[in-house]
Each structure stands twice: as structure tokens, then as C-alpha cells.
């Protein structure tokens, strides 16, 4: 089931940022230097990731590729086993693309303190982000259930410190809330992980996913195990009603942390639902579908309504994610190949889309010194380019056709409709609410009369001294900010018109997963349509 690789690509991918973190944190030198090194390491990781991706064969019949396997704790059946299918591969690549963008956006997140060791705080901030990148690779690449669990929990450590040390005024509270919610989910999962091992064949590699797929289990046991895993993933995803940690965590953490948290880490929840819930417990997944789909649809509508009601930009963005995760979960539990492919693509697109929303909003926040939407108004007049990219990010958030998120959102809906028509129709109403939360925010922030006391830098330069008095110049996009924005907007367009770049890799993995499910549920119709054979 796993195609082994002669080069340990995935281990290398995980090690580069880890080494980078150590270098950044401990090698003496200026903070500026450390930042550049951090970006350098993340870019090297990206390049290696792309090279590794070229080794991936999408025609392979094996579920996992680029595989590595070493015995770790044979007494307990734990292996150090890595490997990726198309789903994991695109998620890892998304994380590798986002990390350097976040590092670049994080340039001024942490002020350098005075004194000889004043740069240390900056260094540890950048180092922690690199550590996080290591765990992000690991968690998607683990093909051993226990190893997955280790990465799943280990991710909490850098995130806890990133939020708790480098966040806003209520960062301690937010970090703790995040940790408690995650640990609550994680501990229940740990019980389920161990119980699953006991159900399996055991042995020195008994935690490998391939050994645990297709187990014959007593339905009650299977359902309990499913719930154990699902709960952890639902907290992580986050689904209503386990979502309340997210707005606090997102608004109190630095924008780069929020991006990686919501854009990548939360995907572990929905990724886990495909990889573990559906693949390991197909019957229980089917059993739970009505409840899960109901929660998903509630998340779509509830998250969107909550987003409309927010006055804090970062909280607004995080509630839009609650809504978007509802779509992803809906597509997964639709049990169609269209829904699965759509959900996976959605995970990738949402990563870029949310990154754009968080990071572009942060550019405004930094200029204004406030996250409160009512503190803005008329900014299109003074920062037209920033307004432009902010609008594009918003349009991606509301799923405008032509941009990437439309393809995935629509595919999820098309793929969910055959098996969950009512849910799909209600979720479709989410596109109306999405227009509301994005455009209302844009209106309040960007439109209206020019804000008092502020002028664009260009105009400021043109004014003579007495006219300038009392006016603060606001810079439009800096070069660094343009570098942050360009790859994200390029991703919207490329994946909007050529989504097959990702889908061609995703489709075989989806078929693999669904074939496991189909063994347990023979009457499954992965295509979903009634028009069997009539399609061209």
C-alpha cells in the first residue's frame, strides 16, 4: 500500500525547517539577519518540496508514496512511517507555500527590544514558526496512527507559545483556551488511538494505517472509536459548537500565526476526517453522517451569520472560516468522489484565501492601530492599492467565479447534492451570506468619505508645510507587502482557471479512499449522479 522511496524526501522536508529553527534561534547575529535566514530556510524547504512532488506518480496504484518506514517502539507497534497520497501532498505543498509568505508578512510583528539580546524575542518568534512548519509536514505525512497523534499533539507546543508570547493583550487567555480545547480533543483521541491498536492485528508495526484499514469490528466499538477521533477533529476543524476557541485564538495571535493556525493547522481536522474517520471506520462514518452533516450545515450558516455580526476584523475572518470548514466537512461526508475532491481542493484554496484575508487585514490594522471595523472608513481614498488587494481577498472569500475558492466551493456543493440534497441547498444559501459579510466589511472599511486627519503619502508629499499640519501620511503597499500579496493572488487565479493542477493529483487519492469505504458500504455510488453513463 505504500511505495517506498530511496530518498527520504519527507524526513528531509521536515528536517530543513527544524535545522533552520535552531540556526535562527541560536546563531548569534542581528535580528534582521535571523529573519532573512528564516525565509531562506523556508524557501529551501519549498524548493525541496516541489522536487519531491515531481517524484510523485499519480498513476501509482499504491495509496501512499515517497514512503519511509523505520521501527520506532516495536513493543507498542509504533513505527516512524511517512508517506503521502495526493491529498496529503497538496496540503503539504500548501503549507510550504504559506510559510515563507507568513514569515515575510511577519517582518514587523515583533518589535526588536533594546539591549544586546534585544533581538532574541524576534529570533524565537521566527524560529517557532519554522518549528511549526516541521510539525505541519509531519502531521500530514504520518502513515502511522500513533506517529500522527504525536505530531498532532506536538503542534500545540509551538502554537501555544506563538499565541501566548507574541499575541495581543488577551493572548494568555486565548492561548490557554486554545490549549484546553485541543487537549480535550487530543486526550479523547489518545484513548481511541490505543483502543484502535488493540482492535488491530498488533505486532511491531500494528499502528500503520494500512494495517488498521478494513478491520472487522463490532459496530459499537467502531462507533466509539469513530467518535473519539471525530471529536478531536471537530474541535480542530473547528465545527460548531466546538469553534469558540478559534475567534479568540485568531484575533489575539499575530497575523502570521493566525494564518498558519486557521489556514494549515485546522486542516488537520478535516484531513483527519478523510484519512482516519472515513478510511478506518467507514460504517461508523455512515452511521454518524446525519449528525455530522447537520453540524456542517449549521457551521456554514452559523459561522456566516456570526461573521456578519462581528466588529473586529480578525474575529470576522475567523468566523468566515467556521463557515468554510462547514462546506469542507459537508463535502467529505457526502461520500462522493466529487465531494471529496472538492473538499480537498477547498482545504488548499481556503489556506490561500484565509491567508490573504488575515494578512491583508493585518496591513490595515498595522496602519490604523486598531482591529475594530468602525475605526476605519474611506481608506480606499488613501490606500487604493491596499484596498484593491483587500477586495480581491474578500472576493476570494465569497467564492467569486474565476477565483480558486469558487471552483472548490461549487464542487463541494455539486458533490454533496446527490446524497445530501437538503444540506447542499441550505449550504448554498451560505453564498448569499458570504456576500454580505465580505461586502459589508469592505464598505465599512474602505468606502465613504476620506478619513479625517489622514492622507495618502503621495498627497502628503505634494502638500506644503502649513497644509500638512495635523495630517498623518499613510503609506500604500510597500514592496514587502506586494511580495506577500502577489503569490497569494496568483494562486487564486491559477487555481481558479487551472484547478486541475491540484485535482489531477487529488482525484486518484480520493478514489483510493472511497474504495476503502466502498468495501464496507457496497451500495455506495461514488459518482453521485443518476445519469450513470450518460455523461460524456
Amino acid at each position, binding site marked *: 500500500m505504500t511505495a517506498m522511496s530511496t530518498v527520504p524526501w519527507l524526513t528531509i522536508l521536515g528536517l530543513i525547517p527544524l535545522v533552520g529553527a535552531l540556526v535562527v534561534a541560536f546563531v548569534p547575529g542581528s535580528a534582521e539577519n535571523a529573519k532573512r535566514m528564516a525565509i531562506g530556510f523556508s524557501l529551501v524547504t519549498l524548493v525541496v518540496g516541489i522536487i519531491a512532488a515531481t517524484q510523485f506518480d499519480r498513476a501509482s496504484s499504491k495509496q501512499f508514496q515517497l514512503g519511509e518506514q523505520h521501527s520506532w517502539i516495536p513493543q507498542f507497534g509504533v513505527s516512524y512511517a511517512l508517506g503521502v497520497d495526493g491529498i496529503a501532498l497538496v496540503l503539504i505543498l500548501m503549507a510550504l507555500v504559506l510559510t515563507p509568505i507568513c514569515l515575510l508578512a511577519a517582518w514587523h510583528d515583533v518589535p526588536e527590544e533594546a539591549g544586546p539580546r534585544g533581538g532574541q524575542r524576534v529570533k524565537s518568534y521566527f524560529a517557532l514558526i519554522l518549528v511549526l512548519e516541521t510539525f505541519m509536514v509531519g502531521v500530514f505525512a504520518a502513515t502511522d496512527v500513533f506517529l500522527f497523534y504525536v505530531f498532532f499533539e506536538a503542534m*500545540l507546543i509551538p502554537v501555544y507559545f506563538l499565541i501566548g508570547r507574541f499575541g495581543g493583550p488577551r493572548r494568555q487567555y486565548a492561548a490557554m483556551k486554545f*490549549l*484546553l480545547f485541543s487537549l480535550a480533543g487530543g486526550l479523547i483521541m489518545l484513548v481511541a488511538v490505543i483502543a484502535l491498536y488493540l482492535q488491530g492485528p498488533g505486532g511491531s508495526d500494528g499502528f500503520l494505517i494500512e494495517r488498521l484499514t478494513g478491520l472487522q469490528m463490532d459496530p459499537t466499538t467502531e462507533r466509539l472509536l469513530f467518535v473519539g477521533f471525530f471529536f478531536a477533529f471537530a474541535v480542530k476543524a473547528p465545527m460548531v459548537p466546538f469553534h469558540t476557541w478559534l475567534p479568540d485564538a485568531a484575533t489575539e495571535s499575530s497575523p502570521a500565526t493566525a494564518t498558519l493556525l486557521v489556514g494549515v493547522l485546522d486542516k488537520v481536522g478535516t484531513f483527519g476526517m478523510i484519512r482516519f474517520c472515513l478510511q478506518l471506520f467507514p460504517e461508523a462514518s455512515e452511521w454518524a453522517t446525519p449528525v455530522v452533516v447537520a453540524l456542517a450545515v449549521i457551521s456554514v450558516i452559523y459561522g456566516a451569520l*456570526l461573521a456578519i455580526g462581528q466588529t473586529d476584523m480578525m474575529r470576522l475572518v475567523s468566523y468566515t472560516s467556521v463557515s468554510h470548514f462547514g462546506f469542507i466537512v459537508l463535502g467529505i461526508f457526502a461520500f462522493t468522489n466529487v465531494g471529496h475532491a472538492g473538499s480537498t481542493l477547498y482545504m488548499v484554496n481556503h489556506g490561500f484565501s484565509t491567508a490573504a484575508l488575515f494578512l491583508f487585514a493585518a496591513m490595515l490594522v498595522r496602519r490604523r492601530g486598531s482591529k475594530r471595523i468602525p475605526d476605519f472608513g474611506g481608506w480606499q481614498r488613501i490606500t487604493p492599492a491596499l484596498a484593491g488587494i483587500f477586495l480581491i481577498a474578500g472576493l476570494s472569500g465569497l467564492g467569486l467565479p474565476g477565483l480558486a475558492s469558487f471552483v472548490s466551493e*461549487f464542487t463541494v456543493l455539486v458533490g454533496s447534492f446527490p446524497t445530501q440534497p437538503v444540506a447542499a441547498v441550505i449550504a448554498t444559501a451560505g453564498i448569499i451570506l458570504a456576500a454580505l459579510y465580505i461586502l459589508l466589511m469592505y464598505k465599512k472599511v*474602505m*468606502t465613504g468619505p476620506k478619513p479625517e486627519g489622514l492622507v495618502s503619502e503621495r498627497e502628503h508629499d505634494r502638500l506644503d508645510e502649513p497644509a500638512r499640519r495635523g495630517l498623518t501620511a499613510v503609506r500604500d503597499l510597500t514592496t514587502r507587502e506586494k511580495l506577500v500579496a502577489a503569490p497569494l493572488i496568483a494562486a487564486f487565479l491559477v487555481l481558479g482557471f487551472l484547478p*486541475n493542477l491540484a485535482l489531477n493529483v487529488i482525484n486518484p487519492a480520493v478514489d483510493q479512499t472511497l474504495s476503502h469505504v466502498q468495501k464496507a458500504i457496497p451500495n455506495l455510488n461514488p459518482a*453521485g449522479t443518476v445519469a450513470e453513463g450518460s*455523461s460524456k
Partner: protein
Amino acid sequence: MGTLVQTLASSPSTLSTYAVGLATHEGEAHAASGVTAYAWLLVALPLLGAAVLLLGGRRTDKFGPVLATVLSWSAFVVGALVFLAMLGRGAEDRAVGIDLFDWVAAGAFKVSAGLLVDQLSMVFVLLITFVGSLIHVYSLGYMEHDPDRRRFFAYLNLFVAAMLLLVLANSYLLLYVGWEGVGLASYLLIGFWNYNPAYATAANKAFVANRVGDFGLSIAIMLMFFHFGAVDFQTVLGAAGDNANQGFMTAIGLMLLLGACGKSAQFPLQSWLGDAMAGPTPVSALIHAATMVTAGVYLVVRSSAIFEAAPTAQLVVVIVGAITLLFGAIVGCAKDDIKKALAASTMSQIGYMMLAAGLGPVGYAFAIFHLLTHGFFKAGMFLGAGSVMHGMNDQVDMRRFGGLSGAMKITWATFGLGWLAILGVPPFSGYWSKDKIIEAAFIGEGWRPWVFGLAALIGAGITAFYMSRLFFMTFHGKKRWTDDVHPHESGLLMTVPMMILAVGSAFLGLVLGATGGITTWLEPVTGAEPEGAHPVLPPWLLVVLTLVLVAAGIALAWLRYWRDDVPAKAPAGSLLTQAARKDLYQDQVNEALLMRPGIHLTRSLVFADSKGVDGAAGGLAALVGGTSSRLRKLQNGFARSYALTMLAGVVAILGALWVMS
């Protein structure tokens, strides 16, 4: 990626082009001639313009507007060449499909991006590129002094590209891209002067109302995929006839209609169009009169195979059209804002088109024909209104106009031709298109021809009244100008496009209608008019009745708005007038039914989420965390130490396992 690059770089021979037959009329395979294979340039050229102007920034300020105009005209040239190539082929070989690239392949959901160049899309291509390019030229004059005119022209180009994609797409999914693309351009242009908060609100209102329609379009596409396993026109429309599961067809039809109602400002999603007049007037002419708002009619006619398999949905189309044509006409009678009066008229005229589109094969060609003539005369009148505003310090209140015929002779004359055309006075354009719709509305059995026919007939009378009112209040009667205005004729950049559109308003109907050219042209797409379909009243009588009503409408308007003095302040008016002034209370209804409950719901959810859900979930987390203390205690350190202990415990266990191994 490779496919696209290959496509863009390829010679025509490597592009896969094929003849397609839709609906009931199958065409025979025919090799496309060279120029047709380049039809994608229609979309690409204006899109390039938008990209250059938006990305180029201030560097393109100087040449940007001219570049955008040139690119728009280039698209027209391409369109005209493709049209000529089409004319050179026999009627059954004119529809050509062009594959561009594989777009989406997600599991069983496979959609390739391609264009469908047929008689129907060609009518639109010519209308959009010709009127669109004229309006680009007009805007060079109209927007001359606007500091942001580069952005304006970028959005105009973006609109033209999206609109062409909408009508050329070969699948419902690609159509959707154009469909929301024009919605975006409309949003950007309505809010072009969004430093005025009311204009920003108008832009939002338009987008959200359109999204409600798009909800319908989305569901229609989902139903299509479920039922047919595909969403391209050829598969869906080809199977719609023989495979008709009527329930499905009805559902798809109604959902498509919902989409059409949003885009075309049809009842009950009409409320955004009046506010959309916040956009600069060339935008109102191009987007909110001539092209975008008629996209709903295109959608219904394009989907004729579905509607013909769903009589119920078809009936609803007719009802929506009839309601909207009367709604718009009544509102138009009470508006004093010249642009809002024209907007109400647009709504009403699209109601006519929608009604015709719902009548089936007797109406399709006339729906499109009226769309075409309306595109000319309404765009012309909007440009005329812009010219008036230009001369009157951007005022829009017709109660402060009057007697402008002397000061602005060209505007008066061109506007006058548009006025005659919309009235349906023979031999001007509207006579050939609108009277045919009235006649078609009287065809049928039972109560329908009487209800719909009378609605269309009465609508014609009201149209004559409100359009004459508008024309007389603006150009005739006493001068009621404010002291600061000095009306003058606009420059040639503005008047020449008005003159060209006026020529179209005068003669387009005669050229295409009297000869039957438009019906013959569209027949392969829309099907032939059924033999033996006669109106319940003789056609000559309908013509006479229409003309009598029109004359009555003109006479009444003449009495009240030319002969009598028009008060500068609007009189209180009857209850109906008051209701019409407030758009028959559409906003009040929407506010009471949707907005206020929505705001309450949102507010209470925000409150409940922070108190209830968070509290409960926090309590649960605290419980799992081994403490029964409430969430607020998190801050006092106890919970933190618990959590850290737990984390440390997990790490310790893992470490122990590591060591043991």
C-alpha cells in the same frame, strides 16, 4: 497548464472546433473557418485591457482610457469578422463550438472550458461590442475630468470581457463565471464614486440581490449535474427534450428563473436596479440598460429546451414578466429623477422580454429582438440623460429641467428618436419588436392570452405616458432651471455615439423586423414559430388598440407636463403616486421581511455565541481538563497549570516510550 499554453499559442488548426446542434435542431458537422477559432480573442482583448490598466497603475493614466477604447473596438472587429464568417455558412452550419482547455475535473464532475458561437450568442456579441465600444467613446468625453477615469475604463473593459464570456460560454458553469463577472463589474461601477456612502450601499445591494439570484443558478447547475451528469449546453439541452423528467425540469427551470430575476431585476428581485443609477451614467447605459440586465433573458432563451419540457416553469416566467412590466411602468410614472425613471422603464421593458421568452417558440425571437432594439434606444436615451446632466451641473431632477430642446438640439433629437422607438410608433424600432410581443402574448388558450395580452397592451399605454412625461418634462414646457445652470450641448465624443444609437433606434427594427431577418436568423436556435398560432384578437385590431393607447398616453402626458406648468416641488399626489414614488414599497417590504429580522438574528447569535456556546464548550473543556471551575478561572492560573501539566504528561509519556524503545 500545458493545455492552456498550447491553446493560447496554437494556430487555428490545432484548436478543436466543431459544429454543434442544440435543442431540437441538430446541425451537421462543419469545419470552422479560420477566424472563428479566434473567437476567444473577444474575451481576451478587453480582459487584457482591464489587466494592463489595473496592474499598470498611474503609469497608464495617460493612455489607459484610449487603450481600453481601442481594445473594445478591436473586440468588435473580431466579432464582426466572426459574424461575416458565420454569414458565409448555411443556416444549419452556423453554430460552432470551440474547446479551450480542461477546466475542472473533480471526480465525476468534469467541465471543459469552451465557447459556443451560434446565432444567439452572435446577436449578443455584436450588441455588446458595438454598443459597448460606443459607450467607451462617450465615456472619454463624459469622464474627462474624473481623477479616477483609468480605473473606470479598466472596469468597463472588465465588464465587456465578462459579458462576452457570459454569452459565449458553452456550459452553465463557465456562463456562471461571466455571470458573476458582470455582477462584479456592475458592483465596482455602481460604487465607482463610493466615497458617497449611499452609492457604496447601492453597490452592495446590487451584488447581494444578484447573489440571491445566483443561489438559484447554483442550484439549477447542481440539479443538472445530478440529473444529466454534465453541465454543458450540448449534453443538458440535448437531453432535456427526450429525457424530460418533468419534476426535475420544472425545478431546474424555476431555479434558472430565480437567477434570471436577480440579474435582470425582475420581480421579486427588482429592488436593486433603481439604486444602481448611482453609477456614472455611461455605466447605466451599458450595464443597467443595454446589456447586463438583459442576461436573464439570454439565460431563459438559451435554456429554452428545459423550459419547454417544464410548462409550469414557463408559466411562471410569463407571470414574472407580466408583473415586472407593469411594476416598472407604474414606478416610472412617478419618478422625478431622470435616471431612476429610465431605470424603471428598463425593468418594465425587460419584463416584456421575459414575458416573450416564457411564451415559448412564438416569443423567443421577439424577446431577443426587443432586447436588441431596446439595447440601442435605451442606451441612446441614457447617454442623452448623461448629456443633459453634463449640461445641467449633474442635476437629475426633471422638475428643474424643461425647455432644453433649444439648448441641446442634438441631445433632444437623438433622445426624441429613442422616445419614438420605445413608444412603438411605426416605423421606429420598438414598433417592430414590442408590438410583436403584445401580439404573441395574445396567443394561447383559456384565460392566459387575455391576462397576459392585456397586461402587455396596458403596459404599452403606460409606457407611452411615462416616457412622454420624461421627454416633455426634460425638453419641453417652461424652463424651471436653477439659477446656477447654463445648459450647453455636449462635445462630439459624446454626441456622435448618441447619434449612431439614434440611427439604430430609428431603423434597426425596420431593417431586421420588416424583413423578418431576425426571426430567420435565430430560427436554428429558437425553433420555428409554430404554424397556425393565432392571437385571440385579430392582429390588425391589436395594432390599432396599441396605437390608440399609446396616443392616449402621449396626450395625457402632453396635457400635464407640457401644456400645464410643472411645479418645481412634487405635489403630494394620490396614494398610488406616493406608492410608485417609493417603488411600490419594495424596500420597506425587504427591510421588514429580511433586513430587520436578519439584524436581530445576527445580533442575538453574536450574543449567544459569546455567552452560551462558548460558556458551555468552555465548561466542557474545563471539565475534561480535570477541573470543575468556570472558564473565567482560566485567567487565574489554576487551569493553566493543569493544562501545562497535562501537556507535560503527554510529552513525558512519549519520552518514556522513546526511551523504552
